[in-house]
């Protein structure tokens, strides 16, 4: 009897954990016309403004969420490594060269609207916001989805020097 209860509790705990993970996952969305494969390395280049064009020549239009939002914090940790604050020096250095960070939009809905309407756009939202993706949007990658076979990524990733042949 006890083993059955124990197993039941473990299953419920596991389901609860799975639910939590699903709520925390981040969906990377791109304009439907963007056909480039999106991986974490690409995200890093795009959101650090090191890649400015897609392979078809269309300019990248990346958008962020507010710095203190949960989805931004999660995205920064998963895609860039580290915290939002870790990159303040990087952006300051880049600003010296006239380059601003990706624009900030206030909500998932604003990001989805912008990405759907803007060629070359890329953004990220909480995964629950794209359970039914609106037209004009492609979900290119999901971050933070737990998988027993997925290798644990290193999260300590120092911001690169901004002075590289700017």
């Amino acid at each position: 009897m006890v083993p059955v209860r124990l197993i039941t509790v473990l299953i419920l705990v596991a389901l609860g954990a799975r639910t939590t993970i699903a709520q925390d996952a981040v969906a990377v969305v791109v304009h439907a016309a963007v056909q480039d494969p999106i991986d974490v390395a690409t995200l890093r280049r795009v959101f650090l403004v090191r890649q400015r064009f897609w392979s078809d020549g269309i300019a990248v239009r990346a958008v962020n969420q507010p710095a203190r939002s949960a989805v931004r914090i999660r995205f920064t940790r998963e895609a860039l490594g580290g915290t939002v604050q870790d990159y303040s020096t990087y952006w300051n250095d880049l600003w010296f060269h006239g380059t601003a960070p990706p624009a900030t939009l206030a909500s998932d809905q604003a990001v989805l609207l912008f990405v759907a309407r803007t060629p070359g756009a890329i953004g990220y939202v909480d995964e629950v916001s794209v359970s039914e993706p609106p037209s004009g949007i492609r979900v290119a990658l999901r971050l933070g989805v737990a998988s027993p076979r997925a290798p644990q990524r290193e999260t300590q990733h120092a911001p690169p020097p901004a002075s590289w042949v700017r």
Partner: protein
Amino acid sequence: MVRIVRRMTSRAYRIVASSAAVFTLAALLGAWTAAARAQLPAAPASSPSRIQVGGYASLTWSRAADSTRVRLAEGNLAAILSGSLTSRITYLAELDAVSSSRENYAGRQDDRQLEVARLYADVSYSDLLRLRVGRFLTPIGQWNEIHAEPLTWTAVRPLTTYRSFAKYSTGAALAGQGSILSRDAGYAVWVAPGLLGMRDDDEEELEFSGAVGTRTAVELTRGLWLGLSAAVVRERRPVSALDDDSLEVPEPGEDDEDEDDEREEREGRALGGFDLTYRTRGMELRSEVVWLAPSDSRPGERAGFVQLALPLGGGLHAVGRAESVTPLAGSRRELWLGGLHWRGPGRVVVKLEHQHAGRVPGAVAHGWFLSVSSLF
């Protein structure tokens, strides 16, 4: 007549200097309050934008090792205007107003009131190919490309980062960046033909009268970046920069009477550079080395430094640097620097440091330095 012109220049200099100091103070205060409201990372504007206005300001005080007097060594205010005309064409202009210079290089002491530091346009064909035309920061080493006071670890700039080459080049550059085996990499090929007809005869800084060079940088492994620079340069520098005395720091107001002391090289010389940056957990280790080859008529020059910044918490870092410089003519100098670097609210940075000149005390800028600066 010359004296009258000089007096007028001196008066204008004082006016510009006073204005720069006042504006700098105002900019610092403004930046402080504005930055306190900003989110991190502070985004001056959405991208792309047709016009973005920014800049930086700094005030630096110094007390020489052999003096008890603390003086305002420099007030600096720089305005940066940038933007995108299209998705492929961008521009940038930087105008600097400097009250006086405390840089430890005699050739930089005078006539630096107002200057166009950068003025260029970029045309991007792709991430791998970008054309830059105009006046830009010479792509040698890391420091020179990020030399603004609020962005550097120390108030005193290493001699390595400007002594052997011109900080700015006027010409064209091809540059690009991409990924090699999932590691970032970038390159630049640049040419500065030397606009002889446009140069200012009163220019006190080292200039290129002709240069062509290349730079490449690659992320070797996570947190470790390597840069290599190479160039062939013809330089024009004040004669005072050619010997041991070039490291002297004249007193404020002291004039260089030898207006004909400029010397220009007739032949190109090889210049090589190497820089390394390692970052992890808030710590940064950086090293830059520059080597200017000798020629038939001129000796060579070598310089290099190693710098370590360690986080102490609360935005405070301890910074240490060891530098060695062998000037064109003269014996090797050693410079030791230790200090604190604090990044305050927003983009305000405060630095307190002491530089010690090892072998020849008094021959280079040494003593205590305090600077307050901000990017806005």
